[in-house]
C-alpha cells in the first residue's frame, strides 16, 4: 500500500517537472533563435555606412559646429527661417524682404543668433542664404552677401 501511495504522489510531480522542462526548452529555443537573428542583423564592423547620395559633402568641422546649434533648429520668425535639411546635409537660411536693407538686417541678426550658440567658426556651417525677394531686389544684393559675413566662397 505504501508503495502505491508513494507512486500516486510522485506521478503528478513528474508530470509537472516534464511540463516545466518543456516550457523551459521552448524558452531556450526562442532565446537562441532571437540571438541568432540579432547576430545576422548586426552590421559587420568593417562595412561602410553610406551617406545618402543626396547628402552634401561638407568641409571638415561642419559636424561639430552643427551639433552646437541643432537643438535650436528650425529657427523661424517673421520673414525668416533657419533650418538644417538632414536629407541634404546643409543649412538653409531663407529671408523674405522687400529691399536689400531688410535682407541684410535679418541676415545679420541670424548670424548673431548662431554666434550666440557658442559656434566657433560660423564659416564651417556653410549656410546658404536665400533671398526670397523680387528679382529686382535680388539683383541689387551684392553677391558677397549671399555668403556668411567674413567667409570666403
Amino acid at each position: 500500500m505504501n508503495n502505491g501511495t508513494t507512486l500516486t504522489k510522485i506521478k503528478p510531480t513528474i508530470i509537472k517537472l516534464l511540463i516545466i522542462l518543456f516550457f523551459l526548452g521552448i524558452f531556450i529555443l526562442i532565446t537562441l533563435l532571437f540571438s541568432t537573428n540579432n547576430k545576422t542583423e548586426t552590421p559587420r564592423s568593417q562595412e561602410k555606412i553610406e551617406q545618402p547620395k543626396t547628402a552634401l559633402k561638407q568641409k571638415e568641422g561642419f559636424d561639430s559646429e552643427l551639433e552646437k546649434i541643432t537643438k535650436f533648429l528650425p529657427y523661424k520668425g517673421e520673414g525668416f527661417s533657419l533650418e538644417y535639411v538632414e536629407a541634404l546635409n546643409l543649412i538653409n537660411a531663407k529671408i523674405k524682404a522687400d529691399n536689400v536693407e531688410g535682407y541684410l538686417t535679418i541676415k545679420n541678426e541670424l548670424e548673431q543668433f548662431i554666434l550666440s550658440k557658442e559656434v566657433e567658426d560660423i564659416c564651417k556651417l556653410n549656410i546658404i542664404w536665400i533671398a526670397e525677394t523680387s528679382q529686382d531686389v535680388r539683383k541689387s544684393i551684392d553677391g558677397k552677401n549671399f555668403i556668411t559675413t567674413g567667409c570666403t566662397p
Partner: protein
Amino acid sequence: MVFKPALVFSRRPWRALLRSGPLAGLALVALFFSLFTSIAHAQAPPDPLPCENPIEPNPEILTHNWMVNENREPVPQDQLQKIATKSGPRGQTDVTVDYTFNFTVDFSKLGGLFGPTNSDYNEGEYQQQDHKNVNISELNPVDISKYNGPIQKAGNQVMLDALRVKYVDYIWRNSHLPEASDEFTNTNGDNPRSIYEMHHEFGEKLPDLDPNTSNPTPPSYGGNKNDWQNKWGQYWSKIPTSYSEYYKAYIQFRAQHKAYENQALVNNSGNLIDQVLRGARCPYWIDETIAFVMPEYFRTTATTGQVNQVIVPGAAQSNHSNDVILLNKPESQNSVSGKGNLLSTIIDKCLKAFQNNPVSNALKKVISFVHTNFLSFNVYAEPYFQTGDNPAEDYNLDCIRILVDGKEGKDPYCALPANQPDSDLQYTCENQIDELKRDKNNLNVICTFKIKWQQTGMTLEAGEGPEFFDTCIDHPINPDWVICDVAVYLWPIFEIPWQAEIWNNTLYSDVPGNEPFIGSPLKQMEGRPGVYSFFTPITIFEDELEGNIRKCRNAPTTESQVCQDVINFVNENIDEKYRSDFEACVEAALITNPDGMVLCIVGVAEHVEKKRPGETDRGSVSDLSRRVIGGTDCSKEYVWHNALYPIAAQKTYGIQNACPVESAASSQDYIPPGDDDFTPPDCPGITPASDGNPNNGIETSVEELQCAIILEAGTKREFITREPLVNVMLYVINAESSYNQCAFADAGEIGVFQYIASTWKSTLVRDGVDSGTVSPPAGSVCWGIAGRDPDTNPPGQDPALFSWVQNFGGTNDGEAWNPFLQIHKTAIMMERFGGACPWSTFKGTLADPSPYTALIGDRCGPQL
C-alpha cells in the same frame, strides 16, 4: 568649273631608247655620262611608289592625341578598360600578370582625319589632273579666279617662282613621289610633259634663281624672258607650289593598372587608375608601337604656311614652320627643316598631352566599337601634382582642349605598312578595296592589333601598393590558392606629324618653344593671326543647310527655289517626332505668314543632323566646304572674336581669348537648348513640392532644386577654380535666382540659372510637353503647364520686362523654363573650361575677394 580633258601623249624617252636596238646601248652610256656632267645629279625616271618610303618624322613635329572621354578614361571601354586575372598560392610574390588587348583601327577612315583639304583650298587644286591639263587661255575670268588659290592670288611672282623652282627640283630628285609621273600641259592645254621630261627636253637643266648660271631662270629673278617663255615658261603657271609627302605617324600606348578601393587611404592612394583620371598620375608607357603612313599632311602644312607668309604681316607671322618648302635644302632631301626651326615640341608630358587633343573625338570613330559613353570629350585637369614618373614636371595646367567632333569621312589613305618598328607586333587585317587607297596592293586596311600589357613583381594579395591586386577570392578547388583581379586601362596615343604647324598657320601664330596649344591665352602670342583670320570663307560659318536658310530669309518669297530646297531637305531628314509640328507649322504659316514659315523651318532644322563643314566626304554637294577646313577644325568664334577684334574690344566685350575649338562642329559644346531625355531627381527625405496635379506643371521647392544639383554635380569640379561643382552651383543659383524657377530679368534672363531666353529660342519642346507662363499673378509655377504657350504676355506682366513672343518666337522655347533642365545644362557647362564664366555671379563674387581672383579674371576676362 569644268576643265577640258586634254589629249595625253605618252612621252617616255628612256623607253624609246631601250626599244631602239644596238644604238640604244651607246645612247644610254652617253646619257649616263651626260648626267654626271649636269649640275643636277642623275635621277631615275619617275616610279611612283605611293605610301612607300615614308619620311621618318623628326619627333619635334609630332603632336600627341590621346583617346579619352570627358573623364580621361580610355575609350572604347569594352576594348581598353579590362580586368587582368591571376591565380596561385595566397601571398605568392614575384608573380607576373598580363593581359592582351585587342585594338582595332580602320586605316581607311584614319586618312580622312588628316586629309589634303587645306592644301587644295590654299593652293587651288593644283594637284588634280584636270588642273594640270586645263587650257588656261580659254578660261573665263571666273574660272581663272577659281583656278588659283589664295597663294597664287596673294603671293607675288618672286615668291611663287621661288616655290616653283623648289618644287621642280624636289620632284626631279624624288622619283618615287606619286606626283613625279604627273604630266602638265602647257598653257594652251597641249604637249603634256612630266617634270622629268621637261628637264630632259629643256637642256638637262633645272631652273634656279641665279641668272648668272647656265640654268634657266625665271624673269622675275633676272632670267632671259624669251628663253624662259620658250621652255619652262610654257608650263610654269601650272607648277604647284608644294608637293605631297608621305610621313610616318605612330600609335603608342600608355597603361595603368590597379583600382584598389579604400577611401580611408589618403587621396585614395590605392586606386592608381583613379589618380590618373584625376590628373594626379601619369600612366606608364608600354612597349608597343604601331606605325602607319600619313598622306598629304605635309602639303597641307606647306600651303598654309605659304599663305601665312603672304598675308600675315611679317612681325606677326607664324614662326619658321611656314617655310617647309623653301627651307628644304637639297642636302636634306628627305628630312624636314632643321631642329629648332619648328614651333611644336614633343608633348610627352602626360597631363599636357591630355589637353592637346584636337582630333581625338574623331579618332574614336576610326576605332571600331559600340558608341557607348560617347558624349562630350573635354578633358579637364586638376591642380594635383603628378606622383608618377616625372615628379619634377610643372603641371600648372592651362586651357582645356575641347575635343570637337572633327572631320570625318574618307580621303586618300595608306594601308598599314608591313615594316613595323616592333617586329613582333601581332595583328590581323582585313582588306578593303576602294579608289582612295594609295597602295593598291596592300591588303591591310582594317587591322586588329594585340597589345600586350604585363606587370611583373606582383603579389597574390589585395592591397594598397602597386604590386598588389585589387581583389582576391578563395580558389574553389585549391584551399591555399586565391584568384586575384586587377583593373588595367590602356590609353592609345596617336602621334601625328605637322598637326600643330597647321593650327599655328591657320588660326594663330605661336612662339618658339611653346606647346602647340590652340588658343591658349597664356601661350598665344597676341596679335599673330593665322590664315583664316584673313581668308575666312563663309562656308566655315555655315553648312549648306544653314546657307540655304540664310538665303531663304532674304528671298523675296518663300516660294522661291531655295526655300523649297530647305523645306524638301528638312522634310526628308526630319526626326519623325517633329514631323507633325513641322507640317502643322508650315501649313499654318504658308499662306498668311511667310516669315513664320521660315521660323518653322529654322526651328525644325536645328534637329536635323547636318553635315558639318569639317567633314570630308568627297561625295558631298559642297566640295568647297570640305576644302576649307582641311586639317584644321577652324573655330568660328576664334576667327571672329580673337583674330579680328582688337585686344581692347575683346576686353570690353568680355570675349574669351581661349579654346577656339569649343564652337567648332561639336554638338555638346553648345550646351543649351534642351531636348535632353532626362528625369527629375529622386530625393528621398525631401517633401515633394508638387501636389500631384500635372496641370500645375513642374512645381519645385528650394530643397528639391538643391537635391537636383547635388545629384547632378556629384563629385565633379568646376573647371577654373577646381572647387566642387556642387558648391559653385549652389552659390550661383542662389545669387542668380534664389531658386525661383520663374525668375526673369529685363535682358531676357529666365529660370533658376537665368539663361538668356534667346539662347533657347525657336527650339521645340518634347512631345506632349508645353511651356507654361510666368508667375505671378498667373501662377506659382512657370513650366510644364498643359496647353499652348501664351501668345501674348501673361496678364499683369510688363511687356517691357518680359515678352514671351519676343523671347521665344511663339511656341518653341526648348524647355528653357524647366528648372531641372537648366541645372542639367549648367552642370555640363561649368565642368568645362570657361563654362562658368557667363554667370556674372561667378565672375563677380567668386573672383573678388577670393583665392580665385586672379584665376577667374584671367580665364573669364574682366567683370563687366
